[in-house]
């Protein structure tokens, strides 16, 4: 149900800091949620969501390969199952909200980091997250 999802998402948004841990937590929650949603929807929408979920998870993997300690310390929140009736616009809005928050943190991290390698990493992640976000937003329309 969208209601519990938005509550869970609010908790994630509230408790994540502006650092790589925060980005990882947000991507984790968004990726898990996307996969869960994709399994409950018919295949035409579900496959698109699964692709978006793959993109999000790849971005998350990039974070954990660059910062191996992050997956061990960051908060991992699963938004949980959705009810039998799915309000697609509301649920996708929750996912897009999570990805937007990840964007904000990535932008700050990109500006703050003087290291060119780290900057290119965050650029790459931003690119992946953006494509996933666009795909999800497209579905809600």
């Amino acid at each position, binding site marked *: 149900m969208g209601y519990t999802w938005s509550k869970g998402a609010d908790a994630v948004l509230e408790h994540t800091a502006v650092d790589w841990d925060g980005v990882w937590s947000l991507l984790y929650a968004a990726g898990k949620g996307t996969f869960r949603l*994709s399994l409950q929807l*018919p295949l035409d929408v579900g496959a698109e969501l*699964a*692709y978006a979920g793959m993109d999000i998870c790849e971005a998350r993997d990039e974070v954990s390969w660059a910062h191996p300690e992050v997956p061990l310390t960051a908060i991992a929140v699963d938004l949980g199952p959705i009810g039998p009736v799915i309000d697609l616009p509301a649920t996708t809005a929750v996912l897009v909200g999570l990805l937007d928050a990840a964007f904000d943190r990535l932008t700050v991290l990109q500006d703050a980091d003087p290291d060119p390698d780290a900057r290119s990493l965050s650029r790459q992640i931003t690119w992946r997250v953006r494509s996933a976000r666009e795909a999800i937003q497209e579905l809600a329309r």
Partner: protein
Amino acid sequence: MIATYGDLVGAAGVDIHTGLLRVMRRGFVDHKQAENTVGAYYDLLAALRSHTWWLIDPARARGEELARAMHRKPDDSDLDMVAARLFAGFGPLAQRPVWLPYPDPDFDHPWRDAADKIGAATDLLETHLGPHREPRSEQAALVLDPGQRRGALGFIAMLTSVTMSADSAIGAACRHRDIPWQTVMKWLPDRDATKVLVHRMGELAAKHGDGRGLRDITANLYPVREDDPIVELGDRMLRLRHAAWGLAAATPDYSVVTLHDLAGLGMATHLHTAIAHGLDVGAVAPSPHRLVATAQAFQELMIDLRDYLAPGLPDPDIRMDILAARELLMQIAPLHRPARPLTISDPTTRATLSALHGACEVMGQVARMNQATFATLARSEQIHVPTRLLDGDILSNDPTTAQAKLNGVRRVIAPPARVQQTLQHYEAIGAVTGHVALYQPAVAHAADYEHPALFRQAEFQGRP
């Protein structure tokens, strides 16, 4: 067009016929040409002999021959023995007696092309095996299967028979150029007994299937032709299948992400094929259509594989092929807009659908190989699961893992119950794609061949 084994031996057959017709129609202009043609004839027989000896097992045939030597009665019911005796009847072919000529290096005749093509066919089969006959590709099991090899001998027996029947044509052509009869008799002695053996060899080989098993085998090389999307899709799928076979080796690369990527491609392939057929993919599961059901099974598997943590990075080559294949699928059968109406019956539609179905078949085979890979990974105790993702039945049946979770351990070796869930997803895919097995050896031969990474249920019990 990538040449297959069947293409090569078929083309060799065409050349043998062409050469025979050339001798019959044009004859020889002089003594030199007659010598050269007889040389080419023996070269062709030598090529056929070495190909046959590669297909049968000469060591075994020789051993049995020695064992039977005391009985004096030659055995006509064993294909290997018949083939060995047949070519032994020709005497030395590669290093010939002085009276048998060799062709000049610049002599041009279809029989020389045929000999080259038969040699190339041997090389093509050889690419699938290592120096000690160990498998080098997913088709090696087929190449090594004795039944298939003997079946392939049927066509070779036919080629040999046509070649041997050319001796009367050569003899007649020699008479026209006044070549002495003694010379002709030395070049082409009476071979009636050998002709009987060729006939017998064809009969025996026909019992081993129709020889189609080896027909479609290509060289163990995977080039990608990028000009036509349909062709490129096929090439990339074959390359992925070979890569997946490599992953199923005894030492996998410890990457679950690659398996996840391949499962994602499996979903994409089946989904796009379903859409190309105009199936309704929007229906709520379970769908009555096999393609949609398979796509859903792949989707569940893909999401299930996401939970594992493994030390291996994704294989960049495989990922590149997967991304390219997904692009091509989007191009051939787009999800949202109708591409080319596939209801038109024309060659393009046919090619498109056959490429898509071929891709689906390959993904079914890849899933089976990936199941072996995953089982090997699970046995290696190298794949972990975060404890926060474990709950319910898995924990209640596994006190060690439950204790670890209570103690705040963040990741544990994937417990058997969790691994079993994933294997069930693979089995579900295996059930819906069961008709596309790459190669199922006959029951009699199954004991000879065991894949090194084959998942053995009995051995797996009780180990994560």
